[in-house]
């Protein structure tokens, strides 16, 4: 069979296959999640509290075991071979917490080495911290004196330096001031352009629409919808989200749903 270059779909860097998580108390946090994130793409998981976004990320990081299905990082089952799988992923949490008695530089050095990168010089650390917008004067300050935005920047610098092909972001812009949020989104865009596959959970509909290549809407552990950025062009994502959350899409003829239906 002959393929043209445009026909070849790159293998997904992050993939959830029928990923299901039922907790011991019987709560189904994630129900049969299927998603793929290719290199150079951003997938935003939108959803309210308890929608299953963080559960999905925790499954990719092997913090919890799936009840069914699998989370794959670069084709490696993250729950079967976690040590191997985690070599290919970097993680930035909602509220990056580093060691408060360490300076930014010491934290970066520790976590980057933990990520398996031992060859960086101080200059390279400084360059990464500059890139994320941290002031030089803060490099040797202890983290306990950092604001949330500064900690978030340090966290993303660590992810950049780990240089993993996949990045997991759990509510990365939550609690950031608008300027810091914009800077953060700019950085995510840069990382995408460098070929990273990014899976991001967020409440932030506008930023999700602005930066993502795919948006998935999760409600009660179910991926209600998945749309590409092309699908969403000209669509009021906020209304769409609200309608999904309210369950309208299943019962009513929504103008937004109609707009999203393939012609």
């Amino acid at each position, binding site marked *: 069979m002959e393929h043209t270059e445009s026909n070849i779909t790159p293998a997904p860097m992050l993939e959830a296959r029928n990923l299901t998580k039922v907790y011991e108390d019987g709560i189904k946090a994630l129900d049969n999640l299927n998603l793929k994130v290719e290199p150079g793409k951003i997938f935003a998981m939108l959803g309210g509290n308890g929608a299953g976004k963080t559960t999905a990320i925790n499954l990719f990081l092997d913090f*919890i075991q799936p009840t069914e299905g699998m989370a794959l990082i670069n084709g490696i089952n993250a729950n079967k071979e976690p040590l*191997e799988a985690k070599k290919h992923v970097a*993680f930035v949490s909602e509220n990056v917490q*580093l060691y408060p*008695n*360490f300076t930014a530089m*010491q934290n970066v050095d520790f976590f980057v080495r933990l990520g398996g990168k031992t060859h960086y010089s101080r200059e390279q650390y400084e360059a990464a911290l500059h890139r994320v917008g941290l002031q030089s004067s803060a490099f040797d300050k202890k983290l306990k004196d950092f604001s949330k935005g500064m900690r978030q920047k340090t966290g993303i610098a660590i992810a950049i330096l780990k240089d993993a092909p996949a990045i997991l972001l759990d509510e990365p812009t939550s609690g950031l001031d608008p300027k810091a949020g914009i800077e953060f989104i700019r950085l995510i865009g840069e990382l995408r352009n460098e070929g990273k596959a990014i899976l991001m959970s967020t409440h932030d509909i506008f930023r999700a629409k602005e930066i993502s290549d795919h948006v998935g809407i999760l409600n009660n552990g179910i991926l209600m919808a998945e749309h590409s950025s092309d699908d969403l062009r000209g669509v009021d994502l906020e209304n769409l989200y609200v309608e999904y959350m309210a369950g309208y899409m299943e019962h009513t003829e929504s103008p937004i749903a109609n707009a999203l239906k393939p012609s």
Partner: protein
Amino acid sequence: MNNRAVPLVFNLLFLNLLFNSITMFKLILLKELKEIIQSNRFVISFAVCSVLIILAFLMGAQNYLASQAQYEATIQENRAQIAANTEWYNINHTITLPPQPLMALVNGVSSDIGRNIEMRSRGELIAENTRFNDEPLFAIFRFLDLEFIFGIVLSLFAIIFAYDAINGERTSGTLKLCFSNSISRASFIAGKFTGSFLGLSAALLIPILIGAALLPVLGIELTSDEWLRLTFIVFSGLAYFGVFLTLAIGISSITRRPSTSFLLSLVVWIFAVLIIPRSSVMIAGRMVDVPNLDEIASQKNNYRIQLFDEDRPKLQNFSIPKGTPPAKAFPLFSKFMGELSEKRQDKIEALEERLNEELENKKREQQKLAFSIARISPAAVFTFAVSRLAGTSLDLQHRFNDSAKEYQKLYSNFMEEKTGKSSGGIRIIVSDSDEQEEKKNLDPDEMPAFNFSETSFKETANSSFTDIGLLLLFNLVFFGGAFASFLRYDLR
């Protein structure tokens, strides 16, 4: 892949995994070490440890030198008392327990046991003049020695350092960030324990080394044997400290919140350090009935009275042939009384020996049981190990009593040789003023010397190594527990 290539690949994979684990372990260890050293907790504990440990060395040295001076003064006083006498039967010879150099650092029971024994040719020997008898204030507050510092202060520090080792990282979020990388839980917890242990050991070892270097300056010259003992005392201290560190890490890996693990660790500490050792004595006391000392004394006294009563008719029937001159009558009476007294004394001693043996056996049985129960507590195990190493355990009292009994035979023979009489009974001395001549003062050097033999390190090691082994076993068990619970720990 051919048959030979398969094991090779597995070996390479295994080596890679091992190398990765060691790298991660080293990384966590160094992080932990750095984090500890930069923390306020470390600064405070280092300062407190340094002050306490150096103070313990200084005060211990002072105590030892004071005990040494007191020991020498007692010896001199005893010699002077002998030299001032002209008759051996008039002397009150006292033997004294020499102070142990390592009592400066581990006081043990050295201040609780009698250090002087007034020697008698036969019968019971009673050790008197305890340090606490002379200075009761110390009995209330005890001494600030290494045993106290390790046993109470450092075990608490171990808990303060490690109570949030795992759950603290969970609540702060760093645990998730760490485990978003390819690090195994085994490397993490092993690195964490080793890093904490090394960091806190530094806080202890620096002042201990300074204190040890001060000993010769303070006038305490330790032999190579005693240096070796001191090394093992410090080693036991570190092993004991490790027990509480692993315990606190274990507790922090079964709880979700640092406040819970702190409270739980504190409760365990109170039981292990304060309650179990004391309860063991009470439980053993209830399980093994040791005769009351007053009861025994009363039994002995009754028997003595009974023997006197039995002898009374013999005394009444005793008569000296009429016309015997007083110079001959007295020796006859003296001989008769001596023989009676000798027989009575033999019987009393036989009873005393039997009662004392029964008492001693019961006491040892009770002690053995109390020690066995107390060994549930690492604090008690540590106390046993270090006091044995320092030569200040209960064994010191047993050895002193045994040495005194051994010396009693020498003393008895010597006195018999000097006074021409076997000991015991009533001594009637008839002096004839006509025969009186100027008597020479006694030479104290003639008195056989009392030598208290110290146990060698080898002898001590046999008994204390069991307890050191037990401390290491506690470490292993608690670390195993911490490791097992951390494997199932919810990292979120």
